[in-house]
């Protein structure tokens, strides 16, 4: 059986490669991993006009075949046909930005020198037209001796022609053999690229009027930082205020499901497990999906619009003060959604020491898994008051928690760069892409992938931990007059831990909740939910919501200490696993766990005793 031909999608960063990949393959995408490296493999299927299927693989963007990161190494190795776990490609689609021909053509020429069948997709041709740039496609095609198709990936234009050109390239007799030699001298490719660009470009006015105009504000020494702060502020306010309605729907659905189950099934062990363990346990985590998605919408928009690199530019001076560069800002901002993609995004940092530092501090950025914990505690203990028009006290407290994490990260980076990860800085050198209106489709695909990962976590790790915890807290059954949460197996373990955590203001239930929270932070919420539900079964009948239960039982000082703990508390198991993979060993993950535990303990203790001193105990 002949497998479908493999076509590699290659190009410079910012050429619109992923948008073209989405446009060509639609939802028929698979995300996997290359063996041995943590580089994601994005592949998808497309059908040629004669019905032949083709497997398209989207390779990480790179400027040349001389890699400076694991991502770029994968691109080189796949293109040359020597990447483990990947077939030798039968053809390539090379994507180039029509508005930046002389630069992108250099990589096109280097790829062409490999001799594989290839098609050039001249992308963002509409932007070129808007700039007043006129390109003679026939001349370009003749000079390059390659089929050239003009495309606008975000508007799905030029796709039929691209498929036709690909079909022609594939039927030209594939020479899919591995290649050993690469012409690595990019300077002669560069000069040739400039010559071809000069010949093919008929008219070239001064470039990028829109981008220059926006940058005059976005990169302005005073207006720029203010704009960045405003964007971040709106982002964090939105996470709380826009999510109210959808959270209500999810809670409604969860309540209905629980009530229906209670009404349908007889009162037995299975019903309790289903209602308290599964429906309410998983429900208390899924309810935060809206907030996580809102955060991701902002991050995806900032990335797709081209603003993210401007933010990196604005942050570079501050980051260089602690021995990092603006480049580290992007992985760190992603870590606000989840430390895992954040740590993986550090691969774009060339300097190894700087990259290591960024990995070590990434868990201090408040990830979305902490939001459920923050949201419940803030909702229960901080009054929903307006401090200023449009600025709520709850949102403000949330902002303070985020800022505390950032401050912790700044101090940690400062110390690390002078001790464990000492070394000269790696510098800061980045291309600033033109601004683009992000396509709703690309944002939707990115959002769906995040939502899927989160729900899969809720359905697997979180479900298992919740059910295990429910069993451990339910058995053995306490005799009359003894609290179930103390008599059970989990309760006894927590009692041991409580000895250590009591000095920082933690009570028995909190000691119990922090254990499973190491598997996944958001489980702390469902753990508290389970513990209080199990005790409540004896005393107060009926399901009271968690916030109400907490408000009655915890002092404000205790609640604040719990929040402080979660600002620094060691990350989930998946983050540790990714850190191990990315640093090739256990040394650095152990350093990370150690220093974060110490910070969490100190911060929670300091918060508790300060609050007690102010009479909030």
């Amino acid at each position: 059986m002949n497998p479908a031909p493999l076509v590699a999608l290659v190009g410079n960063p910012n050429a619109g490669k992923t948008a073209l990949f989405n446009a060509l393959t639609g939802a028929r995408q698979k995300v996997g991993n290359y063996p041995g490296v943590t580089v994601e493999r994005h592949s998808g299927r497309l059908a040629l006009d004669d019905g032949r299927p083709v497997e398209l693989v989207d390779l990480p963007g790179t400027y040349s075949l001389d890699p400076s990161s694991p991502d770029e190494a994968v691109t080189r190795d796949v293109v040359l046909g020597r990447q483990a776990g990947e077939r030798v490609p039968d053809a390539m689609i090379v994507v180039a930005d029509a508005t930046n021909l002389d630069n992108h053509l250099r990589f096109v020429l280097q790829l062409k020198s490999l001799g594989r069948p290839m098609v050039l997709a001249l992308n963002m041709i509409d932007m070129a037209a808007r700039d007043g740039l006129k390109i003679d496609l026939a001349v370009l095609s003749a000079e390059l001796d390659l089929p050239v198709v003009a495309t606008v990936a975000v508007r799905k234009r030029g796709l039929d022609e691209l498929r036709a050109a690909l079909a022609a390239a594939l039927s030209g007799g594939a020479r899919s053999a591995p290649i050993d030699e690469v012409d690595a001298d990019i300077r002669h490719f560069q000069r040739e690229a400039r010559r071809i660009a000069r010949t093919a470009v008929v008219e070239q006015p001064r470039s990028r009027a829109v981008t220059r105009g926006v940058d005059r504000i976005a990169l302005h020494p005073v207006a720029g930082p203010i704009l960045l702060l405003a964007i971040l502020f709106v982002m964090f306010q939105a996470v709380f205020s826009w999510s109210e309605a959808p959270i209500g729907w999810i809670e409604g659905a969860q309540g209905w499901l629980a009530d229906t189950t209670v009404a349908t099934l007889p009162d037995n062990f299975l019903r309790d497990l289903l209602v308290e363990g599964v429906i309410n346990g998983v429900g208390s985590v899924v309810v935060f999906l809206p907030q996580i998605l809102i955060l991701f919408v902002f991050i995806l928009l900032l990335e797709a619009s081209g603003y993210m690199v401007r933010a990196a530019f604005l942050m570079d001076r501050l980051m260089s003060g602690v021995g990092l560069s603006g480049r580290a800002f992007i992985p760190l901002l992603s870590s606000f959604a989840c430390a895992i993609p954040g740590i993986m995004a550090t691969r774009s940092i060339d300097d190894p020491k700087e990259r290591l530092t960024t990995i070590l501090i990434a868990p201090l950025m408040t990830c979305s898994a902490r939001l459920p914990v923050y949201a419940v505690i803030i909702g229960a203990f901080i009054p929903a008051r307006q401090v200023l028009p449009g600025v709520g006290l709850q949102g403000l407290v949330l902002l303070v928690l985020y800022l505390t994490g950032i401050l912790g990260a700044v101090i940690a980076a400062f110390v690390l760069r002078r001790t464990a990860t000492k070394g000269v800085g790696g510098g800061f050198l980045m291309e600033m892409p033109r601004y683009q209106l992000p396509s709703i489709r690309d944002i939707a695909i990115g959002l769906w992938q995040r939502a899927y990962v989160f729900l899969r976590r809720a359905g697997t790790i979180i479900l298992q931990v919740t059910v295990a915890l429910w069993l451990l807290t339910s058995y053995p059954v306490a005799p009359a007059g003894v609290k179930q949460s103390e008599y059970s197996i989990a309760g006894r373990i927590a009692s041991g831990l409580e000895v250590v955590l009591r000095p920082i203001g933690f009570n028995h239930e909190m000691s119990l909740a922090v254990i499973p929270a190491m598997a996944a932070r958001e489980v702390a919420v469902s753990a508290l939910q389970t513990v209080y539900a199990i005790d409540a079964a004896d005393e107060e009948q009926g399901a009271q919501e968690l916030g109400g239960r907490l408000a009655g039982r915890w002092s404000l000082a205790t609640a604040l200490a719990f929040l402080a703990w979660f600002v620094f508390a060691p990350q989930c198991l998946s983050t540790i696993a990714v850190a191990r993979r990315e640093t090739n060993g256990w040394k650095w993950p152990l350093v990370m766990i150690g220093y974060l535990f110490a910070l969490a303990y100190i911060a929670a203790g300091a918060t508790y005793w300060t609050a007690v001193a102010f009479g909030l105990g």
Partner: protein
Amino acid sequence: MLAPNLNLAQLPRTQQATVASIEWERMSPTEARRLREFGLDEGVDIELLHRAMLAGGPLACRIGRMTVALRAHVAGAIRVAPLAG
């Protein structure tokens, strides 16, 4: 008339210029390679677009048709010749 022998960091904002010479040895090998990949070469037209707020911050410049952010020490290694007009 501007001095013919400026470096990029000294170039007035939005003054059009061309790259006169590049002291590659003043940069790290990674920086030099990245800049070559961005198309930096003698004779390419170049323009300083933005400076960061704080002293010692990065600069944004146009190299050919590409906008690039770089640090001041790298800009200092790029000698430029301002164009008249």
